[in-house]
Every structure is written in structure tokens, then in C-alpha cells.
């Protein structure tokens, strides 16, 4: 599924739509260059989950936790050198718990991502224009597919 957004606000709006349909245990992987808007999309997802706290990129602390309609674990694994580092902080217990997990730079820890997940890739078309590709792996995401169509 492909989307074009022309502003940060549109990216957040798309995130919101996704966030509103997420269920506990859902996993959203977001990849794309620095400054492509991964965290903005996550802000939208958080809003959709009923979280009004300010979302910042957890580049240095690896994971932030937020309380909403459903709990959100927001990962940024950019600084991770080795998937083993993430496995060693109890990654599985986060992603298999009763929460939504959003993982930025998921490509770095591919081997730890379960087969069922949503994969979002963002690419820069121009300074503000973004092409956002969303793939759904697993039947559990069929409902979100329908909402976004």
C-alpha cells in the first residue's frame, strides 16, 4: 500500500489512522533515512492510541514507554551495533506483552522481528514530500488494511 504525504501534518494524520486501529501485541516497524519522518509518523500513531504525551525519539535510551488506550513501546535501534544488545534488554518481553510496539530502524535488528508485523518504509521525494509504503504481514492486520484503503 502506497501513500504520498506533502507535509508533516499529513504524515501525522496517516499515523493517527493507523494508531486508531492498532491492538495489543501489534508490531509496527518503521524504516527510512534520517529526517524522513519516522518519529512524526510515530507521533501520529501515539495520538491514534490516545496518548497525548509529547513523543521524542528514544535514540539514546533505545525505548520509551507511554500509557494510552493501549500501552506504547517506542523503540529506536539506530545506535545498536548488534541485535544481541537489544535481545539482552529483554526485547521479547516488550514486544510480546500487552502493548503496541513501534520500532524505528527495525532493519538493524531484522532477526528479532517476528514474522507477523507491519512494515513501513518512508522515502524522501522532495524536501517535504514523502512516499510511504506500508506492508502487512499476518492476518491480524487485515482490519487496518481495510481502514486505510
Amino acid at each position, binding site marked *: 500500500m502506497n501513500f504520498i504525504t506533502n507535509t508533516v501534518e499529513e504524515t501525522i494524520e496517516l499515523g493517527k489512522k493507523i494508531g486508531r486501529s492498532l491492538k495489543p501485541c501489534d508490531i509496527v516497524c518503521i524504516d527510512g533515512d534520517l529526517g524522513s519522518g519516522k518519529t512524526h509518523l510515530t507521533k501520529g500513531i501515539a495520538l491514534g492510541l490516545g496518548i497525548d504525551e509529547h513523543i521524542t525519539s528514544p535514540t539514546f535510551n533505545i525505548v520509551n514507554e507511554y500509557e494510552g488506550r493501549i500501552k506504547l513501546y517506542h523503540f529506536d535501534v539506530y545506535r545498536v551495533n548488534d541485535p544481541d544488545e537489544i535481545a539482552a*534488554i*529483554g526485547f*521479547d518481553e516488550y514486544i*510480546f506483552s500487552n502493548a503496541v510496539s513501534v520500532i524505528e530502524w527495525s532493519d538493524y535488528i531484522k*532477526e528479532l522481528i517476528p514474522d507477523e508485523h507491519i512494515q513501513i518504509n518512508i522515502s524522501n521525494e522532495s524536501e517535504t514530500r514523502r512516499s510511504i509504503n506500508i506492508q502487512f504481514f499476518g492476518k491480524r492486520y487485515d482490519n487496518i488494511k481495510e481502514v486505510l484503503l
Partner: protein
Amino acid sequence: MKILGIDTATESASCAVIDDGKVLGEIVFNYKKQHSVILMDMIDSILKNLKLDISDIDGFAVSEGPGSFTGLRIGTAAVKGLSQGTKKPLVGISTLDSLAFNMAFTPGIICPIMDALRGNVYTSLYEFEGGALVRKSEYMVIDLDKLIELLSDRNSQVCFIGDAVPLYRVKLSLNLRDPKFAPAHLNVAKAASLAELGLIKLTDKGASDLHTFAPFYLRKSQAEREYEKKQRDLPNERL
């Protein structure tokens, strides 16, 4: 000799005080992981009800793993603090050993299984020999299917206990000959069981070192994980 036992390795949280061969008190909650919220209250409450001061405790036993990453850290941190503050020894006991001990004198193999996620369990095999719990295998994190293979080869009666029992009971029943399962009231990590093993270990082998003691997480190595992922990603060549 009074031992305070603490278990926070799984969803359940438990603390108990034993005095040599007698359990003075035990509290067990098996409801949501909320160890960081309730553990200290539980310890405070058990001591108050027993009219004991923390300084009356002669030693501490804590489940050292395997188990929940955060749970183990909470238990370890709490016991280290108590041990350092009271200058009393601490000892770590394997979560699997203490679960197996719940099923004392069960004939055949006692097999504690704890949910290690992604279809894996933490496990080890035990037998009671001459009144003592004897571990018959390494501590393992293993795919449930592999455990079934391993147990089928042994051709012995098996009794399962642990938080993975409700998850895999049906599968185990279908694939093994007449397996037994711990009744619900025993199928939870009990701090009294842990404290009893702790007392034995403290007497026989001495205390763990306060400063270097760390939880035992038992994870698959990166090589194993990559191999398994590769196996999953391969097209089904055998079909």
C-alpha cells in the same frame, strides 16, 4: 535459622519466611506482573505479621533465573539491598530447581517448563533420588518440539510444572505418553520452596557473593537465532 525467600522470576510474585524445617509464612500473588509495585509491601507485610524485624532474618534466597528479564532484576536488586543493609548472606536459587522441588517425590522425570516466548521454554529435567532433587540435564532454552523429541527418547513418565503448562498442555498430551501436570495450587513458583533450597545451599555451599551475584538469563545465542530465522525463511524444500 530464618531465611527470607523471594521469587519474582515469572508473572507470579512470592515471598516467604522459613525457620529451619518450618514455613512461618508465605505470600503468593499470581496476577499480572507488578513486582516492582508489590514486592516491598509483601515483604513488609509478612515480617509484620510474623512480628519479625528484618534484622531477625539470617539469610536471603532469591530466584536467580531463568525468567522474566525485569522480574529477575527486581528480585535481585531487592535482595542485594536487603543483604547489604542487614549484612546477612544471600544465595541465588535456580527458578527451575525451585519449581521442580514443588513436585517432590514424583516418580519419573519432573520437567519444569517456563514460557521463553517464540515457541521456546526454559527447562531442565529432574528426578528425586534417595530423597534429594537431582538435576539430570543442563538448564536449557529450547523449542517445545525439541523438548518433546528429547522426552520421547527417554521413555519415562514425565510430570510438567510451570507457567508454560497452560500454553502447551494440549500439545504435550497429544505428543507424549500420558504426561502428568502439576495441580494448580502447586503450579506457581513458591518462595517457601525457594527458601528451603536456599537454606540447604547456604549450609552446604555457602553464600553467593553480594557484589558479583547477577541473574541468570539463559538466552539463545545470536548464532542459534540466526540459524532458526534462516530455517524459517527458507522455502519449504522438504515439502
